[in-house]
């Protein structure tokens, strides 16, 4: 790990802002006002030109970097990438990350109290889409006084938001970083998502989504959902390397249904950890947002036309072992950007860690991301001196 330069942001604090106006959603639903939880790192410069928006993925939230206490358990999900001297360098950039609406970490979501009923929204919470999220993030940008992001950055579902930004608000994005993303899910992806949703919805404790009132939660369904999803975030090779057929603390089979293989106990542990930190209704909503995302659907299934409003300089990265959002999905995006004669650089990082790679510190990946963000920073200096190309 040669590229671990940089320090932790240390203690950070979440913030939140509430917007009163009615939010009309792509699904025809609406929210009569909403709250966004967010965090910021680094300082906004005088020209307000050094802001980077980080969009979180399926089960992420606004706590991207730093930590809340000394427990060692409250570190942000992208702390390896964001901080002083890290690839997303908070000495140079003002970094913003917000929790998407529908979330369960502070932004308005299914577990929030519905002001009209005085009870949690539950399944009354409307379906939200990537476009809706980007719209709320734009509201947050206005609130923070950021008219144009130096870069919008995201991995996986976060990359979809970054892409949507470049389409919905082209004039507000100078650089767009899409990591392990896709322009739409394929049938296999939607299939996996539906397995997860069915696991949750058929759990008797789901109570039609109103489990909050019954002081329970569909934890068995959530556990299965997470176990399946987790397998898809790793690669066959990685699982082989990590667990193989190793048995847990013993040399031979017990011929029982208790977890015997290492991989079984690992996945169960991952499932349990997830149940404790995540809301089932949020998980249902987030997976639906993934399924629905398809900007080309509005332009005759032509991604080039869908991306034609974009003006940003793009950086696209994929990972060779990622079969959930395979390199081919990223290449489709690159091809559409090239057809629009847009500036784009693309890298395909060779590594065994699968879709999860985008969250990890992998030398080739960390280095190239650092190089690209240095480019964003160099142009910042140019624009500050008035010599912007």
């Amino acid at each position, binding site marked *: 790990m040669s590229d671990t330069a940089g320090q932790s942001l240390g203690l950070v604090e979440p913030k939140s802002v509430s917007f009163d106006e009615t939010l009309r959603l792509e699904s025809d639903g609406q929210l009569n006002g909403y709250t966004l939880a967010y965090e910021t790192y680094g300082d906004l410069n005088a020209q307000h030109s050094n802001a980077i928006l980080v969009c979180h993925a399926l089960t992420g939230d606004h706590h991207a970097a730093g930590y809340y206490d000394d427990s060692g358990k409250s570190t942000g999900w992208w702390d390896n990438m964001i901080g002083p001297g890290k690839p997303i360098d908070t000495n140079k950039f003002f970094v913003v990350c917000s929790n998407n609406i529908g979330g369960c970490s502070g932004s308005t979501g299914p577990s929030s109290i519905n002001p009209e009923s005085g009870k949690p929204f539950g399944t009354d919470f409307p379906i939200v889409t990537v476009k809706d999220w980007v719209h709320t993030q734009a509201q947050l940008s206005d609130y923070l006084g950021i008219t144009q992001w130096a870069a919008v950055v995201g991995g996986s579902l976060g990359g979809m938001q970054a892409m949507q930004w470049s389409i919905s608000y082209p004039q507000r994005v100078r650089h767009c970083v899409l990591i392990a993303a896709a322009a739409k899910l394929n049938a296999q992806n939607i299939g996996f998502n539906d397995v997860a949703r069915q696991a949750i919805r058929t759990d008797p404790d789901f109570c039609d989504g109103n489990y909050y009132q019954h002081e329970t939660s569909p934890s068995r369904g959530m556990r299965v959902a997470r176990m399946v999803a987790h397998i898809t975030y790793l690669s066959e090779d990685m699982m082989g390397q990590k667990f193989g057929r190793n048995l847990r603390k013993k040399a031979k089979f017990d011929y029982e249904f208790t977890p015997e293989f290492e991989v079984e106990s690992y996945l169960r542990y991952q499932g349990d950890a997830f149940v404790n930190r995540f809301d089932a209704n949020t998980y249902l909503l987030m997976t639906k947002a993934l399924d629905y995302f398809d900007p080309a659907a509005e332009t005759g299934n032509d991604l080039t036309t869908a991306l034609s409003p974009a003006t940003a300089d793009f950086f696209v990265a994929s990972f060779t072992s990622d079969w959930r959002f395979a390199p081919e999905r990223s*290449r489709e995006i*690159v*091809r559409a950007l*090239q*057809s629009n*004669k847009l*500036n*784009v*650089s*693309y*890298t*395909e*990082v*060779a590594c065994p860690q699968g879709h999860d790679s985008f969250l990890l510190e992998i030398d*080739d990946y960390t*280095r*190239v991301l650092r*190089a*690209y963000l*240095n*480019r964003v920073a*160099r142009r910042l200096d140019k624009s500050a001196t008035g010599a912007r190309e």
Partner: protein
Amino acid sequence: MIESIRSSNLSRHDFQIIADWVEPNSRVIDLGCGNGSLLKHLQDSKNVSGYGVELSPEMIDQCIDNDINVIQTNLDQGLGHFDSNSFDTVILSLTLQAMRQPRRLLEEMMRVGKEGIVTFPNFAHWRNRWQIAFGGRMPVSKQLPFKWYNTPNIHLCTLKDFHALCEQLGFKIESSIAVKADGAQSLGLKTMPNLFGEIALCRFSKR
């Protein structure tokens, strides 16, 4: 390995020959762009736009440092990423000889672009001929620094060979120059380029 031949062999002098062949403000793609220095030179001197294509991760980082667009891809898999007729000039510099299917790549170049520029080490240079004829060994030189068993240069050709292939593919040679790696001029170079040229530079178009 391929990158190391490229960066050490193409001089500023060769850059200038290529730059003279490229229209200002045109769309250019540089296949096997290495650290991006040629494309950077063309961006700065001719205000071209376009992309570099490269395989090595280290070179990708350097391209990004050099402020050029770079696409990481294996040229042996063709140019499927790129639309037909989307570039004015397609450059393939000191890379052709390392391709598995040079002929197919040349055809691909003429699919995506109007003009092609190819540079390659001229295998017919007299020093190579000498080493084979009198030493009886595969040539090793500054341009071709590898042994036969570890060379990435699997499809070496001569200036004449290249012209013949262009003829066969129906390409028109617009310009053809042979140079010495150090840029030095000589009468022999002009009269017998296939004997005295270390590096060949050819510009061609669809007939």
